[in-house]
């Protein structure tokens, strides 16, 4: 089977039961994406598939043969951090760091959704431009849990990048 991860082609022979997350971690050595709950509840496994954030634990690798997958390894490099990675460092958006790759991939997808004008549960109006207030950021990031509870700093980091984008 062929997969495209972070713009690179990979070949792997995997059992049909393999989740996209296990493909990345166990077969391709891309261990940035983390396994927390393995049931879509914690968000540590969040990756981008064709630009959209999803939980890689709740989907099968075989279903993604023709897709473009982006993981934390594809967002930035140690020498050239993605703006979200830099902002998480600057604002101390983590303690143990386990949820961070998922948080950052999720935030990247979320900023895109906001740019497209997608409303959220806390949006007073469903139409028009989205203003990423702290309440909006928290609601839109609620699929990513942080056991160290670095939430205020995560929101600070994302707010800064959202501001630069605007």
């Amino acid at each position, binding site marked *: 089977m062929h997969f495209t991860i972070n713009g690179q082609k990979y070949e792997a022979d995997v059992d049909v039961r393999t989740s996209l997350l296990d493909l990345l971690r166990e077969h391709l050595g891309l261990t940035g994406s983390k396994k927390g709950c393995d049931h879509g509840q914690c968000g540590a496994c969040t990756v981008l598939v064709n630009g959209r954030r999803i939980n890689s634990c709740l989907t099968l690798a075989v279903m993604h043969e023709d897709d473009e997958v982006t993981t934390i390894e594809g967002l930035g490099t140690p020498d050239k951090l993605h703006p979200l990675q830099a902002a998480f460092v600057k604002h101390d958006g983590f303690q143990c760091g386990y949820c961070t790759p998922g948080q950052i991939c999720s935030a990247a997808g979320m900023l895109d959704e906001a740019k497209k004008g997608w409303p959220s*549960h806390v949006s007073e109006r469903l139409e028009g431009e989205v203003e990423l207030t702290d309440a909006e950021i928290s609601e839109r990031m609620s699929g990513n849990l942080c056991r160290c509870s670095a939430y205020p700093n995560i929101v600070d980091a994302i707010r800064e990048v959202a501001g630069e984008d605007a």
Partner: protein
Amino acid sequence: MKTFDYARADSPEAATREGGEKVRFIAGGTNLLDLMKLQVETPEKLIDITRLDLNEVEDTDEGGLRIGALVPNADLAAHPRVVKDYEVLSRALLAGASGQLRNKASTGGNLLQRTRCYYFYDTAVACNKREPGSGCPARDGFNRIHAVLGTSDKCIATHPGDMPVAMRALDAVIVTLKPDGDKRRISIHDFYRLPGDTPEIETVLESGELITHVELPAPPKGKQTYRKVRDRASYAFALVSVAAIVAVEDGKITNAQLGFGGLGPMPWRDATAEEMLVGKAPGKAAFEAAADALLADAQGFGSNDFKIPLARRTLIAVLRELTGVTA
């Protein structure tokens, strides 16, 4: 996870032809794979329907909407027509799950998501829905999230969805394709089944029958909202939810369409409760009469008794909000 055969369908017809009792269609996979990991679901074959051309939201000639079964919850919630004309649906979708899950969860899969009853998820214990005839430990056990309406001796589980509650309030129609090529149009009011003696059968869908679309009639008259009460502010299933569409003209309620989540084994609707409102002046008397009608047959099982007063208060709060009458 038990192993299975995997095939990708290239047309709806081909998908239905491959369907069967031990076969499951897989769309977003967010419910099915969750259950397969726990061996609550053990299909012999998965038919991947994600590449089918069922991804559009189109206007119907009647002024309504035709939603492809694969339209993700996120896209549907943000669709310009949904946002403008079906606010209750957009709000219900946005109240469900997380951004990541809504990107994957499909319209068809959401309708068919299974209950979150703890015993249903635990293969070490009995559960009539999972293992017909084995018993229902929830009745006398932990039942805080369970149903108070429409239950049976065999099962007291709720349907956990938000989107289907709004669709029930909107009189949606579910369009399907059967293996013999027949197309069916099933009103959402006839789509779900009460548990009765067979809680394992949740809908009227037949083996191999594929949901292809969901149709909404032209936008209803009145203001719309969805209120979800849950244990935390986001990313939790409903304890009680209310989808409401209410119109007031010349001091009288002229339309009331109410859907309820968290209360029953299916997204709930009660014609009598709506009759208590239509033709009446909005206010305490009418609102309380509607709540009385809705909850007349409600039965708690201990830990979920609180849902009965909570449903009452939530309904009245929503009616006040939509009519602007707080007296």
